[in-house]
Protein backbone atom coordinates (compact mmCIF):
# COMPACT_ATOMS: atom_id res chain seq x y z
CA UNK A 1 0.00 0.00 0.00
CA UNK A 2 1.34 3.36 -1.00
CA UNK A 3 1.83 6.19 1.51
CA UNK A 4 -0.90 8.30 -0.19
CA UNK A 5 -3.51 5.58 0.04
CA UNK A 6 -2.63 5.00 3.69
CA UNK A 7 -3.06 8.67 4.48
CA UNK A 8 -6.53 8.80 2.79
CA UNK A 9 -7.72 5.78 4.69
CA UNK A 10 -6.49 7.23 7.97
CA UNK A 11 -8.50 10.50 7.32
CA UNK A 12 -11.67 8.59 6.47
CA UNK A 13 -11.38 6.59 9.63
CA UNK A 14 -11.15 9.82 11.72
CA UNK A 15 -14.36 11.23 10.15
CA UNK A 16 -14.49 15.00 9.42
CA UNK A 17 -11.36 17.10 9.48
CA UNK A 18 -11.07 20.12 11.81
CA UNK A 19 -11.51 22.53 8.89
CA UNK A 20 -14.77 21.06 7.73
CA UNK A 21 -16.03 21.04 11.33
CA UNK A 22 -15.38 24.81 11.58
CA UNK A 23 -17.18 25.32 8.27
CA UNK A 24 -20.17 23.43 9.61
CA UNK A 25 -20.24 25.57 12.79
CA UNK A 26 -20.26 28.82 10.77
CA UNK A 27 -23.14 27.71 8.61
CA UNK A 28 -25.22 26.78 11.66
CA UNK A 29 -24.77 30.14 13.50
CA UNK A 30 -27.31 33.02 13.53
CA UNK A 31 -26.77 35.50 10.66
CA UNK A 32 -26.78 38.78 12.55
CA UNK A 33 -25.34 41.01 9.84
CA UNK A 34 -28.57 41.51 7.91
CA UNK A 35 -30.54 42.07 11.12
CA UNK A 36 -27.97 44.65 12.19
CA UNK A 37 -28.34 46.39 8.82
CA UNK A 38 -32.09 46.67 9.30
CA UNK A 39 -31.76 47.92 12.86
CA UNK A 40 -29.20 50.54 11.82
CA UNK A 41 -31.42 51.77 8.98
CA UNK A 42 -34.43 52.12 11.30
CA UNK A 43 -32.26 53.84 13.91
CA UNK A 44 -30.91 56.41 11.45
CA UNK A 45 -34.42 57.08 10.16
CA UNK A 46 -35.66 57.69 13.70
CA UNK A 47 -32.65 59.85 14.55
CA UNK A 48 -33.29 62.03 11.51
CA UNK A 49 -36.95 62.49 12.32
CA UNK A 50 -36.48 62.97 16.03
CA UNK A 51 -36.62 66.60 16.95
CA UNK A 52 -34.55 67.65 19.93
CA UNK A 53 -36.95 70.53 20.46
CA UNK A 54 -39.72 68.02 20.94
CA UNK A 55 -37.61 66.06 23.37
CA UNK A 56 -36.97 69.21 25.39
CA UNK A 57 -40.63 70.05 25.52
CA UNK A 58 -42.11 68.82 28.77
CA UNK A 59 -45.83 68.89 29.25
CA UNK A 60 -46.75 70.14 32.71
CA UNK A 61 -48.53 68.08 35.35
CA UNK A 62 -52.26 68.50 36.14
CA UNK A 63 -52.74 69.66 32.62
CA UNK A 64 -54.61 68.62 29.51
CA UNK A 65 -53.80 70.76 26.51
CA UNK A 66 -56.49 71.61 23.96
CA UNK A 67 -56.41 69.91 20.58
CA UNK A 68 -55.68 72.04 17.53
CA UNK A 69 -54.95 71.74 13.83
CA UNK A 70 -51.87 73.99 14.24
CA UNK A 71 -48.69 72.54 12.80
CA UNK A 72 -45.84 74.68 14.12
CA UNK A 73 -43.20 72.50 15.80
CA UNK A 74 -42.19 73.35 19.40
CA UNK A 75 -39.18 75.60 19.74
CA UNK A 76 -37.06 76.33 22.81
CA UNK A 77 -38.45 79.27 24.76
CA UNK A 78 -39.49 80.30 28.23
CA UNK A 79 -42.09 77.80 29.36
CA UNK A 80 -45.11 79.14 31.21
CA UNK A 81 -47.44 76.46 32.55
CA UNK A 82 -50.96 77.25 33.75
CA UNK A 83 -52.42 74.06 35.17
CA UNK A 84 -55.66 73.48 37.04
CA UNK A 85 -53.91 74.02 40.36
CA UNK A 86 -50.97 76.35 39.87
CA UNK A 87 -48.85 78.54 37.60
CA UNK A 88 -45.17 77.83 37.03
CA UNK A 89 -42.43 79.41 34.94
CA UNK A 90 -39.69 77.16 33.61
CA UNK A 91 -40.40 74.65 36.37
CA UNK A 92 -40.37 77.25 39.16
CA UNK A 93 -43.70 77.56 40.99
CA UNK A 94 -45.24 81.03 40.71
CA UNK A 95 -48.54 80.82 42.50
CA UNK A 96 -51.25 78.39 43.55
CA UNK A 97 -54.74 78.72 42.08
CA UNK A 98 -57.92 78.89 44.14
CA UNK A 99 -61.05 77.61 42.37
CA UNK A 100 -59.39 78.09 38.99
CA UNK A 101 -58.33 81.68 39.62
CA UNK A 102 -55.48 83.63 41.18
CA UNK A 103 -56.06 84.66 44.80
CA UNK A 104 -56.68 88.38 45.28
CA UNK A 105 -53.60 88.69 47.48
CA UNK A 106 -51.38 87.50 44.59
CA UNK A 107 -52.64 90.24 42.28
CA UNK A 108 -51.36 93.78 41.88
CA UNK A 109 -53.62 96.74 42.66
CA UNK A 110 -55.05 96.73 39.13
CA UNK A 111 -56.62 93.31 39.83
CA UNK A 112 -55.12 91.77 36.67
CA UNK A 113 -51.33 91.66 37.04
CA UNK A 114 -50.00 88.55 38.78
CA UNK A 115 -47.34 90.12 41.01
CA UNK A 116 -44.92 87.21 41.38
CA UNK A 117 -45.17 86.24 37.73
CA UNK A 118 -44.35 89.81 36.70
CA UNK A 119 -41.30 89.79 39.00
CA UNK A 120 -40.06 86.46 37.66
CA UNK A 121 -40.55 87.54 34.04
CA UNK A 122 -38.67 90.75 34.77
CA UNK A 123 -35.76 88.68 36.13
CA UNK A 124 -35.85 86.48 33.05
CA UNK A 125 -35.82 89.53 30.78
CA UNK A 126 -32.88 91.09 32.65
CA UNK A 127 -30.96 87.81 32.47
CA UNK A 128 -31.64 87.54 28.76
CA UNK A 129 -30.57 91.16 28.12
CA UNK A 130 -27.40 90.59 30.19
CA UNK A 131 -26.56 87.56 28.04
CA UNK A 132 -27.37 89.47 24.87
CA UNK A 133 -24.82 92.16 25.83
CA UNK A 134 -22.06 89.60 26.19
CA UNK A 135 -23.01 87.20 23.46
CA UNK A 136 -23.79 88.29 19.91
CA UNK A 137 -25.66 85.05 19.21
CA UNK A 138 -28.17 85.71 21.96
CA UNK A 139 -30.99 88.25 21.59
CA UNK A 140 -34.02 88.98 23.68
CA UNK A 141 -37.04 88.18 21.51
CA UNK A 142 -39.72 88.18 24.18
CA UNK A 143 -40.85 84.71 23.15
CA UNK A 144 -42.85 82.71 25.65
CA UNK A 145 -44.67 79.40 25.27
CA UNK A 146 -47.81 79.02 27.33
CA UNK A 147 -49.22 75.64 28.22
CA UNK A 148 -52.69 76.11 29.64
CA UNK A 149 -55.30 73.57 30.63
CA UNK A 150 -58.12 73.40 28.10
CA UNK A 151 -60.83 73.90 30.73
CA UNK A 152 -59.42 77.08 32.23
CA UNK A 153 -61.54 80.18 31.90
CA UNK A 154 -60.47 83.25 29.96
CA UNK A 155 -60.74 85.19 33.23
CA UNK A 156 -57.52 83.47 34.38
CA UNK A 157 -55.84 83.18 30.98
CA UNK A 158 -56.17 86.92 30.35
CA UNK A 159 -54.40 87.71 33.62
CA UNK A 160 -51.47 85.53 32.59
CA UNK A 161 -51.37 86.98 29.07
CA UNK A 162 -51.63 90.53 30.36
CA UNK A 163 -48.83 90.00 32.89
CA UNK A 164 -46.58 88.54 30.18
CA UNK A 165 -47.45 91.41 27.84
CA UNK A 166 -46.55 94.16 30.27
CA UNK A 167 -43.30 92.31 31.04
CA UNK A 168 -42.33 92.60 27.34
CA UNK A 169 -42.96 88.94 26.55
CA UNK A 170 -45.20 89.67 23.58
CA UNK A 171 -44.23 86.85 21.23
CA UNK A 172 -46.82 84.53 22.65
CA UNK A 173 -47.03 80.92 21.55
CA UNK A 174 -49.76 78.60 22.75
CA UNK A 175 -48.87 74.94 23.20
CA UNK A 176 -51.56 72.58 21.95
CA UNK A 177 -51.91 68.91 21.17
CA UNK A 178 -51.93 68.02 17.52
CA UNK A 179 -55.39 66.95 16.42
CA UNK A 180 -55.42 63.35 15.15
CA UNK A 181 -55.90 63.35 11.36
Amino acid at each position, binding site marked *: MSDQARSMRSKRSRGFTGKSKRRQNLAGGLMLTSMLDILCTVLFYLLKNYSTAMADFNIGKDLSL*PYSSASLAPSPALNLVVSRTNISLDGQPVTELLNGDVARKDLWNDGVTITKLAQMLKQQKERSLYLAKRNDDHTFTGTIVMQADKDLKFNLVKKVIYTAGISDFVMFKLAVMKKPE
Partner: protein
Amino acid sequence: MANQPSKRTNRLKPSEELMLTPLIDLITTMMFFFLIFASNIPVTLIDAPLPKIAATAEEVKKAKETDSKQELLVYVNMTGITVKSSLGGTKQFSFGPEGATTYKDLHEFLLSIHLKDPKARELTLIPDDDVIYDRMVSVMDAAREFYPGDPGFQQVPPEVAYKPEAERFNRMFPDVSIGGI
Protein backbone atom coordinates in the same frame (compact mmCIF):
# COMPACT_ATOMS: atom_id res chain seq x y z
CA MET B 1 13.71 18.52 24.88
CA ALA B 2 10.84 20.58 26.24
CA ASN B 3 7.37 20.14 24.77
CA GLN B 4 6.37 22.93 22.43
CA PRO B 5 2.79 23.69 21.42
CA SER B 6 2.04 22.68 17.89
CA LYS B 7 2.37 25.44 15.30
CA ARG B 8 -1.04 24.50 13.90
CA THR B 9 -2.92 25.01 17.13
CA ASN B 10 -5.63 27.76 17.18
CA ARG B 11 -5.97 27.95 20.95
CA LEU B 12 -3.70 30.94 21.44
CA LYS B 13 -5.03 33.02 18.51
CA PRO B 14 -7.45 35.85 19.44
CA SER B 15 -10.94 35.61 17.99
CA GLU B 16 -11.14 37.34 14.62
CA GLU B 17 -14.93 37.73 14.69
CA LEU B 18 -16.49 41.12 15.42
CA MET B 19 -18.41 41.18 18.72
CA LEU B 20 -21.83 42.17 17.45
CA THR B 21 -23.90 41.40 20.51
CA PRO B 22 -23.23 44.60 22.51
CA LEU B 23 -23.74 46.64 19.34
CA ILE B 24 -27.10 45.01 18.69
CA ASP B 25 -28.08 45.56 22.33
CA LEU B 26 -27.27 49.25 22.05
CA ILE B 27 -29.04 49.75 18.74
CA THR B 28 -32.15 47.91 19.90
CA THR B 29 -32.34 49.95 23.09
CA MET B 30 -31.94 53.25 21.21
CA MET B 31 -34.48 52.18 18.61
CA PHE B 32 -37.15 51.44 21.20
CA PHE B 33 -36.40 54.73 22.96
CA PHE B 34 -36.88 56.72 19.75
CA LEU B 35 -39.93 54.71 18.71
CA ILE B 36 -41.65 55.45 22.01
CA PHE B 37 -40.67 59.07 22.55
CA ALA B 38 -40.66 60.35 18.96
CA SER B 39 -44.31 59.53 18.43
CA ASN B 40 -45.83 60.28 21.82
CA ILE B 41 -45.23 64.03 22.07
CA PRO B 42 -47.53 65.42 19.41
CA VAL B 43 -47.30 68.99 20.70
CA THR B 44 -47.54 71.90 18.30
CA LEU B 45 -47.64 75.66 18.79
CA ILE B 46 -50.01 78.43 17.79
CA ASP B 47 -48.50 81.83 17.16
CA ALA B 48 -50.52 84.44 19.01
CA PRO B 49 -48.37 87.54 19.33
CA LEU B 50 -49.84 90.14 21.64
CA PRO B 51 -50.89 93.42 20.02
CA LYS B 52 -48.03 95.87 20.10
CA ILE B 53 -48.73 99.48 20.98
CA ALA B 54 -47.36 101.77 18.30
CA ALA B 55 -44.99 103.92 20.27
CA THR B 56 -43.19 106.13 17.80
CA ALA B 57 -44.65 108.46 15.17
CA GLU B 58 -43.15 106.27 12.47
CA GLU B 59 -44.86 103.18 13.82
CA VAL B 60 -48.21 105.01 13.99
CA LYS B 61 -47.76 106.13 10.37
CA LYS B 62 -46.86 102.61 9.28
CA ALA B 63 -49.88 101.18 11.06
CA LYS B 64 -52.13 103.62 9.22
CA GLU B 65 -50.63 102.69 5.87
CA THR B 66 -51.30 98.98 6.10
CA ASP B 67 -52.73 97.45 2.93
CA SER B 68 -55.88 96.16 4.54
CA LYS B 69 -58.32 98.51 6.20
CA GLN B 70 -60.45 95.56 7.26
CA GLU B 71 -61.30 95.15 10.91
CA LEU B 72 -62.43 91.72 11.98
CA LEU B 73 -63.65 91.18 15.51
CA VAL B 74 -64.77 87.80 16.85
CA TYR B 75 -66.66 87.86 20.15
CA VAL B 76 -67.05 84.55 21.97
CA ASN B 77 -69.43 83.98 24.88
CA MET B 78 -71.05 80.99 26.55
CA THR B 79 -73.87 80.76 24.02
CA GLY B 80 -72.16 81.47 20.75
CA ILE B 81 -69.85 83.48 18.51
CA THR B 82 -70.46 86.90 16.97
CA VAL B 83 -68.35 88.10 14.04
CA LYS B 84 -68.21 91.80 13.23
CA SER B 85 -66.51 92.74 10.00
CA SER B 86 -66.42 95.87 7.90
CA LEU B 87 -66.75 93.69 4.79
CA GLY B 88 -69.09 90.92 5.88
CA GLY B 89 -71.29 92.72 8.39
CA THR B 90 -72.31 91.04 11.61
CA LYS B 91 -73.14 87.37 11.92
CA GLN B 92 -73.92 85.17 14.91
CA PHE B 93 -73.27 81.47 15.42
CA SER B 94 -74.83 79.57 18.32
CA PHE B 95 -73.12 76.69 20.06
CA GLY B 96 -75.41 73.79 19.32
CA PRO B 97 -75.12 70.28 20.72
CA GLU B 98 -72.41 69.65 18.13
CA GLY B 99 -69.77 72.32 18.45
CA ALA B 100 -67.99 71.23 15.27
CA THR B 101 -70.88 72.49 13.11
CA THR B 102 -70.58 75.95 14.67
CA TYR B 103 -66.87 76.13 13.91
CA LYS B 104 -67.44 74.88 10.35
CA ASP B 105 -70.06 77.58 9.74
CA LEU B 106 -67.73 80.16 11.29
CA HIS B 107 -64.91 78.99 9.03
CA GLU B 108 -67.09 79.33 5.91
CA PHE B 109 -68.14 82.84 6.88
CA LEU B 110 -64.56 83.90 7.58
CA LEU B 111 -63.52 82.37 4.26
CA SER B 112 -66.11 84.49 2.44
CA ILE B 113 -64.67 87.60 4.14
CA HIS B 114 -61.12 86.54 3.25
CA LEU B 115 -62.08 86.11 -0.42
CA LYS B 116 -63.35 89.71 -0.47
CA ASP B 117 -60.05 90.98 0.93
CA PRO B 118 -57.26 88.39 0.48
CA LYS B 119 -54.66 90.73 2.01
CA ALA B 120 -56.41 90.74 5.38
CA ARG B 121 -54.62 88.51 7.88
CA GLU B 122 -55.59 89.94 11.24
CA LEU B 123 -58.37 88.96 13.54
CA THR B 124 -59.11 90.13 17.05
CA LEU B 125 -60.55 87.51 19.37
CA ILE B 126 -62.56 88.90 22.27
CA PRO B 127 -63.77 86.16 24.61
CA ASP B 128 -66.00 86.64 27.67
CA ASP B 129 -64.47 85.90 31.06
CA ASP B 130 -66.38 82.60 31.35
CA VAL B 131 -65.27 81.22 28.00
CA ILE B 132 -62.98 78.23 28.33
CA TYR B 133 -59.54 78.18 26.70
CA ASP B 134 -60.44 75.17 24.54
CA ARG B 135 -63.13 77.23 22.78
CA MET B 136 -60.66 80.03 22.10
CA VAL B 137 -58.29 77.56 20.43
CA SER B 138 -61.14 76.13 18.34
CA VAL B 139 -62.07 79.63 17.09
CA MET B 140 -58.39 80.26 16.21
CA ASP B 141 -58.35 76.95 14.31
CA ALA B 142 -61.45 77.91 12.32
CA ALA B 143 -59.89 81.27 11.39
CA ARG B 144 -56.25 80.38 10.84
CA GLU B 145 -56.11 78.35 7.64
CA PHE B 146 -57.92 76.97 4.64
CA TYR B 147 -59.44 73.54 4.91
CA PRO B 148 -59.01 70.95 2.15
CA GLY B 149 -61.51 71.81 -0.58
CA ASP B 150 -61.50 75.57 0.12
CA PRO B 151 -60.60 77.84 -2.80
CA GLY B 152 -56.85 78.51 -2.58
CA PHE B 153 -56.05 75.39 -0.56
CA GLN B 154 -52.58 74.00 -1.36
CA GLN B 155 -51.16 70.69 -0.26
CA VAL B 156 -48.18 71.32 2.03
CA PRO B 157 -45.08 69.54 0.66
CA PRO B 158 -43.99 66.82 3.09
CA GLU B 159 -40.44 68.23 3.30
CA VAL B 160 -41.67 71.47 4.89
CA ALA B 161 -44.46 70.01 7.04
CA TYR B 162 -44.15 70.97 10.73
CA LYS B 163 -41.48 73.55 9.86
CA PRO B 164 -41.80 77.36 9.94
CA GLU B 165 -41.84 77.31 6.12
CA ALA B 166 -45.19 75.50 6.27
CA GLU B 167 -46.67 78.72 7.66
CA ARG B 168 -46.64 80.16 4.12
CA PHE B 169 -49.33 77.74 3.00
CA ASN B 170 -53.10 77.98 3.38
CA ARG B 171 -53.15 81.04 5.61
CA MET B 172 -56.48 82.79 6.12
CA PHE B 173 -56.40 84.86 9.32
CA PRO B 174 -53.22 83.64 11.04
CA ASP B 175 -52.52 86.82 13.02
CA VAL B 176 -54.87 86.45 15.94
CA SER B 177 -54.74 89.11 18.61
CA ILE B 178 -56.40 88.37 21.90
CA GLY B 179 -58.49 91.32 22.97
CA GLY B 180 -60.65 92.06 25.97
CA ILE B 181 -57.70 92.09 28.33
